[in-house]
């Protein structure tokens, strides 16, 4: 048995160690098989403790602690025996069964050994009458006195033991006599002997040999602490008041040691705290639905909304109305509010109305109920579409916290009377002009009618409502007079002042559109009538709603959040213009508009009536119009979207990119639900392609876009087989068995950590195979989707095994774990590093070989319309094939783009940020699609060939070339052509077939063919040894 190499890692034990167990434990430090064994045994012990039924629960604990000590010889954190010991002692401290149990006594001695002042703890034990019948107890106690040279006290301890007739008595007797011998020696040899004492102390208390150097909480340095007691009275009083718990006392002693933070300036802290507090109070106030408190409480200098940057603010409501969290109890009937969650959301009022109506058994109402159902099924798409042309109407939804119109009105009045003043002062003077009375009325009227929305809305919005009511108003003023031509400048200044709070500006922009659109609507006159009898009767509300042409009534919070997201920091500027676009269109399609608004009215009335306000006659009218509206709107949507694009291209070239992104986002957000409903049936039938989007978003990596695309394909959809929903965030701990879902994995070590996740090597306990676990937080469903899509689309293709295969994907709301095959040889980057280190002569063969592999893989992937988006040597794994050659496997599809979901010929403009892998298209500002992958293949090939990252420059003719010189031995024309083709893709993505063919023929030449296999073999060996 070879312990000599690891003896420093073995903590000596008073009772010695079991050599067999020690051997296993030592081997387990390097051998995963043994590790698994240990972990299994450990689990077994823990299970025993959990399920113990008999009347000696200490037994299992004792065995477990003893085993832990043997199995984890380092006595460090790995075994976690300290915590277990503490738990055990705490549990049985007051158990009368174990008051005088030998095992218990041994555990106590073990525990107390860990503390710097054991004597005190022994005294406590004595006063609690714990284990006083065992010689071991007195021996251990007396030892600490003896070690400190306080033989008198040690003697009194032994005498106390003898008085108590501690067993075995002989042992105590011998120990006592030994004490005299030691005391005699001490006196005779004096200080010379002290060092021996020290040595023995170190041994006995089982500390390493230099207690000062390795001093830690766990390892007692008895000398030092004990000297403190030396100066006490020589007569030892062994009794004291019994503490309630020794453990707590022991912990208390330990506690201050942890608090070793040095004092320092904390000048920055108070300020921070204040900020936080002010935020909090706001959020809470709204949460509680106390409408009058927040307004009154606001200090005058509160910013318009808040100073935080919401540019990448994700509203949780968009897809998950309110995430299920164990620590939150929802104050509303969530299951009922979101009964039909993706499509619709009910307000509390609606739910009440439903109940109310159900109680009233009248034929008329039954009919109403029926119509309601119809709406529920078909409405959402229509309504969402309708919203779109008038851009974003949601601001009104900010009114949501108020349950009744009356309340709301009250609030609004408050807002206008109080908070307006300081708001206005904070804004540029331009806006102060905004005193247009009809408009104000408008706003006032519009808002009240609004149905209530679920309170959780507000949680996420925090203080938005207040600011909104006002801002909406002021901006609409701005917009009103000019109507058609957008006032770019004015808008801009406004935004500059408000710059940080996009949430708010976003909503304001939406309101602009809404109000601006109004006059253009044929339905406008209708608004007037209801206004005149402006008592807040229920009927009035309905009319109002319809007339204004808003869909707020059916606007759900989801929708609303959507739009919030859309409005990004920079967009408000465009919004002005965007609304103009909309308006233009509205002019063009006036007739349609009219219809549209009328429909709106009908629909909204029906909706309203749900809450029990309207008469049945109105509702019936609504249902009548509805079905026709549906079809119509769908058509309209597509035309509008096209027009958007054409309009932009023709007339507004200056701000093209920005605008497109805005419109794109707008469109996609509003569109996607509708589209998904359209496509769903088809998908179920043939399980094939989903209809692509009608527009091209500028940023294909936008999280919202990804979400909506996943919705579109009704993820997990066809790939549900390996999709496992789990709860919580699985904690992957090295060298432990982790249960994910129903499967358990033994996590071996961490392979890598990236920006988006961590990769572990693990053993699947059921299949006993080695796998790689990719743990991502937040969950990455997209990668799973892409991997599965590639596999599905390439089914039967010879290269289908060149892509990462996800065997199982575990998803929860917090995190995801993808399970894929573990590749022993590492990545292409590892291979390159080895090549670089070993200075292999002429690696061109390998470079040719791997480049060809990469080209083939990328070609196959592009054929099925997938862009990887993050190709680099690290993302190719090297796989050893059975015919003793190497192939590559593409992994990490977290940045991939599924072009099948976009219109054919789609291009993107959003920049890529992987350093040294930014394609020339991005640098030139040209739109890109498949180009990036091809460029990145070239960059990877460059690394392969020249062992350095590719630097590019533009030559005189404006073409991109690589900055480095090709090595002399290299096949210059081939490589030059290759780089030229991959770097200059101005006229569309490079032709991969051609390149592939040239590489193939080059590799087939006799000379290369022969040396290639040799080089492959040597690199396989080197990678193995890695």
């Amino acid at each position: 048995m070879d312990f000599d190499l690891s003896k420093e890692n073995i903590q000596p034990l008073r009772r010695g160690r079991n050599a067999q167990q020690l051997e296993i434990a030592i081997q387990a430090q390097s051998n995963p098989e043994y590790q698994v064994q240990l972990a299994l045994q450990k689990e077994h012990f823990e299970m025993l403790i959990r399920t113990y039924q008999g009347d000696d629960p200490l037994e299992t604990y004792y065995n477990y602690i003893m085993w832990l000590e043997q199995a984890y010889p380092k006595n460090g954190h790995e075994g976690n025996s300290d915590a277990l010991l503490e738990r055990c002692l705490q549990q049985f401290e007051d158990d009368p069964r174990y008051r005088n149990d030998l095992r218990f006594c041994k555990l106590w001695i073990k525990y107390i050994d860990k503390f710097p002042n054991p004597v005190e703890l022994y005294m406590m034990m004595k006063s609690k009458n714990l284990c006083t019948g065992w010689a071991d107890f007195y021996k251990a106690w007396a030892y600490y006195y003896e070690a400190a040279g306080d033989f008198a006290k040690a003697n009194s301890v032994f005498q106390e033991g003898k008085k108590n007739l501690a067993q075995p008595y002989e042992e105590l007797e011998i120990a006592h006599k030994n004490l005299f011998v030691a005391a005699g020696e001490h006196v005779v040899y004096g200080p010379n002997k002290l060092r021996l004492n020290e040595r023995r102390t170190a041994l006995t208390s089982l500390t390493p040999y230099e207690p000062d150097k390795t001093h830690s909480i766990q390892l007692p340095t008895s000398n030092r602490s004990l000297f403190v007691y030396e100066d006490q009275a020589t007569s030892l009083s062994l009794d004291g008041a019994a503490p309630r718990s020794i453990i707590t006392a022991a912990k208390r002693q330990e506690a201050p040691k942890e608090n070793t933070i040095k004092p320092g300036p904390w000048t920055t802290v108070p300020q921070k705290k204040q900020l936080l507090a002010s935020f909090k109070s706001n959020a809470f106030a709204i949460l509680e639905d106390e409408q009058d408190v927040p307004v009154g409480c606001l200090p005058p200098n509160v910013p318009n909304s808040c100073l935080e940057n919401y540019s990448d603010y994700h509203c949780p409501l968009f897809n998950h109305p309110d995430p299920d969290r164990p620590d939150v109890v929802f104050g509303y009937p969530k299951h009922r509010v979101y009964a039909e969650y993706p499509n619709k959301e009910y307000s509390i009022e609606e739910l009440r109305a439903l109940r109310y109506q159900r109680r009233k058994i009248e034929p008329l109402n039954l009919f109403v109920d029926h119509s309601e159902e119809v709406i529920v099924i078909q409405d959402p798409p229509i309504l969402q579409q309708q919203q779109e042309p008038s851009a974003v109407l949601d601001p009104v939804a900010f009114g949501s916290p108020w349950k009744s119109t009356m309340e709301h009105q009250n609030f609004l009045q408050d807002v206008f009377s109080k908070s307006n003043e300081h708001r206005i002062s904070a804004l540029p003077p331009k806006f102060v002009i905004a005193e247009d009375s009809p408009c104000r009325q408008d706003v006032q009227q519009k808002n009240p009618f609004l149905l209530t929305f679920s309170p959780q809305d507000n949680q996420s919005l925090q203080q938005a409502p207040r600011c909104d009511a006002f801002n909406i108003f002021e901006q609409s003023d701005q917009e009103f007079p000019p109507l058609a031509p957008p006032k770019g400048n004015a808008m801009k200044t406004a935004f500059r002042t408000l710059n940080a709070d996009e949430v708010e500006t976003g909503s304001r922009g939406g309101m602009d559109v809404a109000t601006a659109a109004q006059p253009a609507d044929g339905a406008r006159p209708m608004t007037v009538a209801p206004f005149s009898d402006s008592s807040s009767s229920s009927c009035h509300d309905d009319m109002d709603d319809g007339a204004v042409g808003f869909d707020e009534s059916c606007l759900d919070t989801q929708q609303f959040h959507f739009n919030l997201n859309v409005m990004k920091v920079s967009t408000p500027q465009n919004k002005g213009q965007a609304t103009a676009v909309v308006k233009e269109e509205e002019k063009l399609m006036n007739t349609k508009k009219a219809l549209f608004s009328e429909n709106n009215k009908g629909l909204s009335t029906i909706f309203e009536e749900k809450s029990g306000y309207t008469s049945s006659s109105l509702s019936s009218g609504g249902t009548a119009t509805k079905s026709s509206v549906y079809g119509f709107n769908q058509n309209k949507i597509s035309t509008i979207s096209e027009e958007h694009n054409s309009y932009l291209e023709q007339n507004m070239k200056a701000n093209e990119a920005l605008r497109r992104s805005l419109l794109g986002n707008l469109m996609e957000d509003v569109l996607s639900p509708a589209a998904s409903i359209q496509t769903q049936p088809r998908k179920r039938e043939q399980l094939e392609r989903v209809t692509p989007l009608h527009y091209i978003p500028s940023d294909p990596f936008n999280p919202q876009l990804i979400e909506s695309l996943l919705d579109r394909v009704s993820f997990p959809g066809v790939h549900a087989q390996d999709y496992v929903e789990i709860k919580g965030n699985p904690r992957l701990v090295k060298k432990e068995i982790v249960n994910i879902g129903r499967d358990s994995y033994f996590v071996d070590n961490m392979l890598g950590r990236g920006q988006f996740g961590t990769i572990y090597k693990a053993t699947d306990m059921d299949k006993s195979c080695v796998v790689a676990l990719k743990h991502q937080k937040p969950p990455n469903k997209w990668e799973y989707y892409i991997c599965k899509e590639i596999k599905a689309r390439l089914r039967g293709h010879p290269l289908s095994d060149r892509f990462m295969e996800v065997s199982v994907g575990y998803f929860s709301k917090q995190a995801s774990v993808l399970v894929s095959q573990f590749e022993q040889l590492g990545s292409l980057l590892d291979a390159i590093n080895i090549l670089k280190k070993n200075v292999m002569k002429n690696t061109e063969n390998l470079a040719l070989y791997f480049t060809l592999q990469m080209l083939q893989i990328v070609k196959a992937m592009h054929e099925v319309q997938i862009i990887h988006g993050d190709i680099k040597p690290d993302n190719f794994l090297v796989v050893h094939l059975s015919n003793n050659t190497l192939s590559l496997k593409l992994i990490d599809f977290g940045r991939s783009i599924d072009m099948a979901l976009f219109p054919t010929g789609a291009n993107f403009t959003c920049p890529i940020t992987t350093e040294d892998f930014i394609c020339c298209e991005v640098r030139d500002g040209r739109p890109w699609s498949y180009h990036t992958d091809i460029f990145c293949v070239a960059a990877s090939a460059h690394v392969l060939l020249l062992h350095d990252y590719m630097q590019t420059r533009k030559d005189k003719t404006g073409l991109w070339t690589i900055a480095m010189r090709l090595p002399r031995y290299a096949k210059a024309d081939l490589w030059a052509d290759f780089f030229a083709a991959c770097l200059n893709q101005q006229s569309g993505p490079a032709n991969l077939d051609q390149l592939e063919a040239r590489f193939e023929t080059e590799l087939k030449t006799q000379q290369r063919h022969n040396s290639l296999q040799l080089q492959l073999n040597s690199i396989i060996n080197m990678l193995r040894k890695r």
Partner: protein
Amino acid sequence: MTTAAVKNKSAITLKGSSDILCDYLNYGINSILFQRGLYPSEDFQATENYGLNILMSTNNKIKEFLATTLGQLKEWLIKRTVNRVALIITNVKTLEVMERWDFTIEYEGNIEDGEAQTSDKPLKQIKNEIRDVLRQIASSVSYLPLLDCLCSFDIQIYTTNDVELPEKWALAEPANIKNAQSVKMRSFSTQIHKMDTAVTYRNED
């Protein structure tokens, strides 16, 4: 015949092999005495051998005792009458055996050659083997139980029955340990003698 000449030059005789064994035992036993804390560490002095720093006792009594014992042992080794040497660690008070170190000797090679037997194993290799064993002995503290009582040691030599007992020597009962557990160390060989080292200790609980 250069090879033969080299062989002859580095050949180890039976006597030389016995010397090597006794040297090893001397260092090994001293090392154990130090490692197991039987005597105060001040009584030990570091000596370098086998490429290791080995602590040797400076206590004259111990030195004398070991010298006589090992001197006698050497004779018996040459006569090939020894089977085993055991270092017994006992509790002074209870006389209970705490630990036993067994050095088992086997005879290798052409035993028929008698005293003329030689081995051509390089000395350096043997020393390396011994070094490994001594290292293992040093590392044994990591698993051996703590000797927290006053202890003393004794050496027992197991011989064939036809051995003449020297003066001051006595027959002894074999030292047995209750509930014992044994750990075998590496062995080394001179190709005349082969020595196995093992420690047996009380396995508590």
